[in-house]
């Protein structure tokens, strides 16, 4: 018997599989996030060359910001797979991803505002990266709003997938928004991103927490997609037999 990926593109087969792996993702999410945060809060230097204890919000902020961007790309990917192959499950995955993505974008903005207040001296600034991250959150909200505004779920899926594709333009812009040749003439308050100047314990805490956030996202997305499957396949025989 050969293993077939397409077998699990059918909701009837995916539903029990997702149910099996959700506890695993929850376990990994809790372990990795608590380890990453423990390491970040207790095994890292107290004072940096220019920042004090408050820099530790980086462990939540960076992980959430990364997830906000990655999940958006993932949502677009599932939407496009749905558009091309007309598969029901991929649209459901896209829909399930949108809510977790919006949450991550929101956490990134809030934690960034708190950090910005103590370090830069302001809660908010129309810095390119901040502005684009705000737009990213609005895109998530727009996706959810458009999807729920259309009653026919197949039409809603397609329209929302197209909208999400258009919004994808924002993700590389966020990523490259601070690469400016001379920092003194650059309007961005964010510094250039690079791992070179990051102390190894800080980097470890950051990467492990980000992995934990990934696992959390998978767990919640799969839980949500199971609900969506039940909701949409309510009239099928296998659901009524559950």
């Amino acid at each position, binding site marked *: 018997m050969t293993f077939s990926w397409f077998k699990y593109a059918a909701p009837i087969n995916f539903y029990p599989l997702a149910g099996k792996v959700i506890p695993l993702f929850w376990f990994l999410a809790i372990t990795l996030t608590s380890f990453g945060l423990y390491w970040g809060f207790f095994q890292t230097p107290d004072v940096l060359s*220019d920042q004090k204890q408050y820099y530790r919000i980086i462990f939540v902020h960076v992980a959430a910001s990364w997830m906000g961007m990655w999940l958006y790309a993932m949502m677009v990917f599932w939407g496009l797979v749905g558009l*091309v192959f007309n598969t029901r499950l991929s649209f459901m995955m896209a829909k399930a991803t949108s809510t977790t993505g919006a949450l991550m974008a929101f956490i990134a903005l809030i934690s960034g505002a708190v950090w910005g207040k103590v370090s830069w*001296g302001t809660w908010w600034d129309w810095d390119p990266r901040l502005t684009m991250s705000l737009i990213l959150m609005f895109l998530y909200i727009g996706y959810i709003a458009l999807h729920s505004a259309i009653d026919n779920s197949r039409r809603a899926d397609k329209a929302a997938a197209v909208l999400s594709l258009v919004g994808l333009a924002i993700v590389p812009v966020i990523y490259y928004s601070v690469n400016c040749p001379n920092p003194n003439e650059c309007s961005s308050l964010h510094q250039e991103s690079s791992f070179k100047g990051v102390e190894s314990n800080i980097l470890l805490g950051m990467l492990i927490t980000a992995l934990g956030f990934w696992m959390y996202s998978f767990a919640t997305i799969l839980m949500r997609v199971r609900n969506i499957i039940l909701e949409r396949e309510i009239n099928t025989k296998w659901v009524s037999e559950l």
Partner: protein
Amino acid sequence: MKARQKRLIFVLLGIVAVMGASFLINKAMQGNFYKLYTPKAVLAGEVPIGQVVRIGGLVKKGSLKRSNTKMEARFIVLDRNKNEVTIVTNKILPDLFKEGKSQVARGVLKEDGIFYAEEVLAKHDANYMPTEVKDILKEEHTPITKVKEGVK
């Protein structure tokens, strides 16, 4: 051509178009999202007097002076050509604000050539290094003779 292939081509064209748009936005935004003036522009008279603008630059070492009698700080910002502009503010300076570091000030330039800032923001670099490590590195790079003499 099958309907699925047609859809695939449409989607790929869509991705190409969106990435093109993204590239153009990036190009247009290169450090120019909102207008940021440099000390050079101030000295050249390009900055409108009495209007709210932003000025960026490095805080000159040894230039920060706080008033003894009122809530006021005064410092000089530099650009890479060492042009200088004096900035006066009566607002709290952020924690990261330091001499030798970058800042962005929002305020108005008056006829006296001094920039009166309503808000001063600090920028930081991409270094997340503890202070101790930096000091050790500095010591290691200092010739031994100098350390012995107590000169650091």
